[in-house]
């Protein structure tokens, strides 16, 4: 079923296995470093 497939995808993603075409989003924060990090 659709529900089962969605659950399976999430489970695969949790294991670091992504479906084809999946682009992981960068973490929302913190943002990029503009100069250098102390």
């Amino acid at each position, binding site marked *: 079923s659709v529900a089962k497939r969605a659950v399976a995808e999430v489970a695969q993603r949790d294991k670091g296995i992504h479906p084809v075409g999946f682009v992981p989003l960068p973490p*929302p*924060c*913190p*943002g*990029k470093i*503009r*100069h*250098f*990090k*102390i």
Partner: protein
Amino acid sequence: VPAAPPAPLGCDDPESEAAAEVAVSYINGHSRHGYKFALNRIENIRVLPQGPNNDIIFLEVDLLETTCPILSPTLLANCTVRSFTDHAVEGDCDVKLQKLNGQLSVLASKCHSHADSSEDIIQICPDCPLLARLNDTEVLAAVTAALNDHNSKTTDAYLKLLEIGRARIQYNPAHVVSAEFAVAATNCSAAEAKANVESCQLLPDDQSNFGFCTATKVIRPTEDLSVDCQLYGHQVPTPGVPFLSRVSQPPGQDAT
């Protein structure tokens, strides 16, 4: 079906960057000490909706010290961030903003600044001079000597010290003290000050003329002193933020 809540803002979203820009501008505009700070990183952002077109935004930002003194008229965009080997100083700020009908304004801000650890600098640049304490005896002596030297040679206004911005001491291969300090013109010419320095007063805010000096005093192997002072020209003070709120004393008298 109730509307889904909006996705949380990411730190690199244009809305977050706009809020950070307003925050940095506010922080620099309300500081009268040290140097201008530039945005290095947005650490976190949280938005609390208050009603239609009304949000409270909590922003955490990392800033880095630039080479522009806070009283310098140079725009922040044209200021250079101090390099790592220049013993960088970081500012951590929490800022509360309101976005009302698309207009951002700062409600409160709280900042702490700290210099990078000496160990970090030495690891990458073993010979780089490190930041010295602003009340270090050698620093105070170098600033006093430099300002006296400038005032003894100039035909313009007699300058008084406002504050020491930063100082570094190097011991090898030569013993060198370098310092940067903010100054203000007085109502005396340098020649008048020679006759009676006590009568020389800083000009009121609306006629203020600030400047900035860099000085280098070589102690070993051969004593030498060089100083360069630049005045910014008359500036209009920000209402509610007195330029002369700081204590103006000659170095050596509780200058910190």
